[in-house]
């Protein structure tokens, strides 16, 4: 594998590790942004330019900012007195390690039957547009409804309660 792959992989995994291990919550959110950027670079390396730019636009441009806003609005930047890991952290770690072991074993066992490298597909935005409007028009409309519902729902959930209802 090329050196670029290893560099991007190191960046992404380091960002992910920092996102779950750091004590300061805002630093975790910024490390998450680094992980998102690493993933966008992976998508660009896999010739999925549209997905890569959409990843940057949506995740770094919106989700990361959403997370930091939520951290600031819930005073997450103050370090808690009982430490940042929950009481049963060991069980969580063991489960995660188990999941990784199973997934890694599955991948390594099936290396011989995995598809091999085909020629790089040239994906134009025109093809994506066609696909979205012809074959995938139903998922597109459902995602639009979902986003509307999420927008309205998030506003209602986070709205201040009316004074009379308390």
């Amino acid at each position, binding site marked *: 594998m090329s050196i670029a792959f290893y560099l991007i992989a190191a960046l992404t995994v380091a960002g992910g590790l920092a996102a779950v291990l750091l004590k300061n919550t805002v630093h975790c959110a910024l490390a998450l*942004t680094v992980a998102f950027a690493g993933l966008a670079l992976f998508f660009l390396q896999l010739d999925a*330019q549209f997905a890569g730019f*959409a990843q940057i636009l949506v995740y770094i*441009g919106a989700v990361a900012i959403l997370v930091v806003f939520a951290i*600031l609005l819930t005073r997450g930047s103050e370090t808690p007195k009982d430490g940042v890991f929950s009481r049963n952290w060991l069980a969580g770690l063991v489960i995660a390690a188990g999941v990784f072991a199973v997934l890694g074993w599955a991948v390594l066992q099936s290396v011989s039957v995995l598809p091999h490298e085909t020629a790089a597909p040239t994906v134009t935005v025109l093809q994506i547009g066609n696909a979205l409007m012809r074959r995938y028009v139903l998922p597109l409309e459902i995602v639009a409804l979902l986003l509307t519902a999420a927008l309205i729902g998030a506003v209602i959930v986070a709205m201040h309660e009316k004074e009379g209802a308390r």
Partner: protein
Amino acid sequence: MIETLDQIFVLLQHWLMGLLPAGLQPAAGVVLGVVAIVCLFPALFALTTVFERKGLARIQNRIGPNRVGPLGILQPIADGIKSLTKEDIVPLSADAAVHFLAPLLMVVMVFMGFAVLPMGRNMVLVDMDAGLLFFFAMGASTELSVFMAGWSSRNKYSLLGAMRAVAQMISYEVPLLMSSVAVVMIAGSLSLTKIVDAQNHYTWGLPHWYIFTPWGLAGFLTFAVAATAETNRSPFDLPEGESELVAGYHTEYSGFKFALFFLGEYLAMFSISGLGTTLFLGGWSAPFSFLGWVPSWFWFFSKMMLSIFVFIWMRGTLPRLRQDQLMNFAWKFVLPLTLVNLMIAVLWRFLGEGWQRWVFCSAILLFAYAGMGLAGMRRGHFGPRRYRYAE
């Protein structure tokens, strides 16, 4: 001769590439383009700071910098020396790593946006199929750097300024994108070079720029408003207004880091003006077909500097909008107008050539604009303001 002058930078690049062995040539071509952008735009930035200070001064009935060099032209050099030699103060409780990275991230992301702008015929650094999407992705990342700057300073005013700035930038990002979607729909491509090519035709000597269509004019106006808000320029500069929040999210920055923020803000202004000229004003195409002999890069840069001039003019003329007025304006006026604009663009496309589409589209747009403006106004009617004085 005309061709040579038009393509002079491309020919220069190819000649320099030819001096190197064949293996290094593609990389050298890209590096030359990057070096050109990195040298040219900060130089333009220096020129614009003088332009702005003199322009604002004249609007405000004073003279502006006139000590350093004739007419104050060498003022940026003095400013550069000042900002480089000032002490770099980092507050003790500030988050040093994030504090350091915020201006860097902003400048890097803004420079990346220049890579897809077609600055002349065949003069685009990377001709991407999804160039517009790439540009907006880079612009979205600058919001994060604003937040990082405000939060890392551990200063209430910085944090408040940063939150306001981020809220403003996110709110105006949606109208910015929606105005461009109308252009993409009519041009049929996300690639900026194809959008310019679609506008590079002339009818009776007049160009086919998108601003000369009803939906293009409305789109350009909403794009301009959203662009002014995205770059935190007056009248949307509450996050960094001097009389409001000290200096907002760059309060705790001194010396070179402040200069980097300043550079980042002006470069963002350049890049979004460049995008506006590409999408609506025809990019590098000449205004009249008989002026086609003038080099294409001259037209691009003059249109961009015209937009900068309008930015400076607006700064000197309009009062600042309050945060809630600004947000109301974005969500309740500009965004519905961009949605109406999208419908108009569709109608334009499907009505076909002829005078009907001009009349229908202009009528619907004027009706929507007047209707929404009237609905948002407290007075309920258009007309001069009547003042009530205390008795």
